[in-house]
């Protein structure tokens, strides 16, 4: 990633992050962490809500759970990749599904990074920072 052009570090305030998880308590923690780092935060509790919010807000980054009622995270990712207006949106999967084949599915469906729960706070934040900076 180092050979890629660095984005301007000062535009964090304008960077929008959408957090998608069906567990409200996890959303609480995610929201706190990402806001603390200075990003603008939106939340969604399922896939359909997430897609609606994205149409409106065009976030730069989506932190996406996989196992959700209704549309699952992989499906959400496919919808994002189909949508030309969301082509700059980067997807970070954050899920309890940790097998190799799940990871593969995640990358195959357009995920940038695949993180597993329970996550490490610092790792999550630095991952988001990296994706914003380089990707």
């Amino acid at each position, binding site marked *: 990633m180092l050979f890629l052009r660095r984005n301007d570090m000062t535009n964090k305030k304008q960077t929008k992050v959408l957090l998608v998880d069906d567990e409200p308590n996890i959303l609480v923690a995610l929201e706190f962490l990402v806001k603390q780092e200075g990003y603008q935060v939106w939340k969604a509790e399922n896939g359909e809500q997430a897609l609606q919010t994205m149409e409106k807000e065009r976030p730069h980054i989506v932190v996406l759970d996989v196992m959700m009622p209704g549309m699952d995270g992989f499906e959400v990712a496919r919808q994002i990749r189909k949508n030309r207006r969301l082509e700059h949106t980067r997807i970070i999967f954050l899920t*309890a599904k940790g*097998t190799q084949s799940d990871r593969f599915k995640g990358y195959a469906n357009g995920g940038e990074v695949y993180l597993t729960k329970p996550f490490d*706070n610092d790792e999550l934040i630095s991952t988001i920072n990296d994706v914003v900076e380089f990707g």
Partner: protein
Amino acid sequence: MEPGIVIVISFAYVALLFLLAYYGDNREKQGRSLVNNSTIYALSLAVYCTAWTYYGSVGRAATTGLGFLPIYLGPAIVAPFWWVVLRKIIIISKSQHITSIADFISSRYGKSTWLGVVATLIAIFGIIPYISIQLKAISTSFDLLAIHDNQLGPHSERPFYQDSAWFIAIALAAFTVLFGTRHLDPNERHGGLVAAIAFESVLKLVAFLTVGIFVTFGLYNGFGDIFRSGLQQAGIARLFDLEASGINGWEWFWLVLLSMSAVMLLPRQFHISVVENTNPSHVKKASWMFPLYLLLINIFVLPIAIAGLLEFPNGEFEPDSFVLSLPLAHGKNMLALAVGLGGFSSATSMVIVAVIALSIMISNHLVLPLLIRQQSFQERPKSNLGGRILGIRRISIVTVLLLAYGYFKAVGEQYTLVSVGLISFTAIAQFIPSVFGGIFWKRATKKGALAGLVAGFAVWVYTLPLPTMFEATKLSAAFLEHGPFGLEWLRPYSLFGMQGSSHIAQAAFWSLLINLATYYFVSLYTTQTPLEISQANLFVDIYKYQAGGVEYDIMRRQASMQDIRMLLNRFLGETRAATLLAPYEQANPQTAGPELVNYVETNLAGAIGAASAKVIIGSISKEEPISLEEMFKVLEQTKEAIQYSKALEKKSAELERTTQQLKQANEQLKELDQLKADFITTVTHELRTPITSIKALSKIMLETPSLPPAQQQEFLNIVASESERLTRLINQVLDLEKLQSNQAQWELEPVSLAEIVEQAYLGLQQLMRDRNIRHDLSVMNRPLAVLGHADYLTQVAVNLISNAIKFCNETEGRISIRLSQQGPMAVLEIEDNGRGIAAKDQHMIFEKFTQVSDVHRGKPQGSGLGLFITQAIISRHQGRISIRSALSQGATFIVEIPLLAPSE
């Protein structure tokens, strides 16, 4: 006829044969083999028809009528099965460079030297009488042709230099040496010889058919005429009566069995059909052509026998010589000479092949094992052994023929051709268990084969040759009549008190029974060495190895190239050694690896037999034999494949059903496995979710000292409730584990279901009131006694009522609970007015971790284990749970549990 003419013609005939053989060998060298042809192969098999057939069949027909037939019925019956049995033996033998029947047996049982020795001895003792009767046949016919009568008296009283049999033995020895030991072939193939044998088969058939036509259509007016004339005489008519001629089913059975084994296992038959075989697929044609040949050569047997009996009513000639004496008596000298030549060829072909086969066995299995153990052999490593082996072969040939001549002088003349031949057949039949057991039964051991052969052979010696010797020498009539030491049950001709059976049938019965039993039981109670196991596998599963699927290196041996070269030079000569090693010399290796060592051993085995080759290779190689464990590992891997293919082959309904059941069981296991995997995945997921919040939030609180107290309070609440959730989940998993594992510890006792439900209801009443849910409980019968576990049943009621609370309408909730008796069952119904469950989802709600979620209401709380546990508890009570619901119309869960006894 002048003796000189007969002698000249005989020599001319032999010269012709030799030319033919020479030509055949030359064609072989040029690679245009004469004998690579299925017709020639089938004809060469007719070496089975010896002088015994040519002269003896008529003799036997003249004394026992149809009694001559079983000897040809056996081969005709077994021939259709050759495609399975003989072809397998051929393929095994080609892959192992097997050179004789003794080599075959020795190879199968771990290349055992001792088995080779025993099998060779049995063959020698069995075959020498057989060869002797060929000498008898040739010399008798010679005497008849040249002198017209036995004016010189019996052979045993003549000095050998006046005995035609002596000169015939010498001539045959010379001829066989010329034919059979011109060079040492690593495959023991003699193409020229086979061509000559096939030619002789044609000649003897044509000659016999000619004399048959002469007698039937020349002396009489066809078959009908002969049989009618015969029937008019009481002595001859008797022959058409099977009972009176002493041939019954029992006798036929044994004669057929003996001839079946003889046609495959006699050393000369094995040599021609297996060792000289150039292509296993030739067996196909042979399996119908050979029986046809037997039919043709037997057509005229009865007519000639009857004609002979009519012609010589006073026994002027032995019935064994009718074929010759009939044309002679009618002055047809040229015909008689042609017949004599036919008889000569039937005897010579048998003698040549049998003696070559025996000489190979003697040199490879008797002499070489002794030789290679000698000091002098090991001290003179440079000498060429190829020449020495040929020398041994030549000496063996001469010795065998001399022994046969000796037997002929001492015993042979007093017996008919057939009776001596059958004694040989019975000896050779001793190979049946070790050969056929060996190619179909892996468990058979070397010790079993050795014990079986020795036991069978001992019984044979005791019941057949021993008494003939006593009779011949008139030593002791008492021995035969009263048994040794007066023990009647040991009388050789009625062993163990067996009566009413011919000598041959009872000897065959006892020797084979004891042989087979010994072979079987000793095999069961002894173990195999790794080499035996690998050889057994190779023999039994030859088709699999031939298909090239499995690499098989039992011995991981190494030897220096120098030693290998020296060894091959000694046994095969420098030219052949160089040819054999050429593909390996390019890399110019210093040491030979296991592959090359095996290759050399197999090729050497062709020259000197498997057992000797093993010993010799052992003397120059460092051996690291595979351990038994490794062996089993290899076998285990192939076993599954074999079992699978066997199951396929057997098309019986039962096996297919079993296969089906196995498949189902396998599917079920797979399904269970998948369920277990799913369970673990889901449990870990369910555990990770609360841990994620707990971990993230507690870390935040640790690292952010400036957190506002309100926020801190919120986070701590979440941590507490998620911990609660974690505890609940763990408890449920433990519950489930308990439910599934220890059924035995369940103590069921009579409890009142009404009481249990009332208590659960009371416990949850407050919660329902808090949520503004209207609720009622109606108990229509009590006490509703069931055999049950109070705590678990309470859990059922609580789970179901909690579910109803969770899922009922959020604003105007309503739950009604009814408890009643319906027939022999106590019935609990719990109804809510929630969204209900769609019909398509109803079947899955009782599965682990299934929650029917919907987007608008979000995820329901709970692990998804509740209903599953509920159902497990109910089924432990022999009850069942069902659901009545439709989407948007609420749901009713119905639990039925059998009543303890009908309430009054």
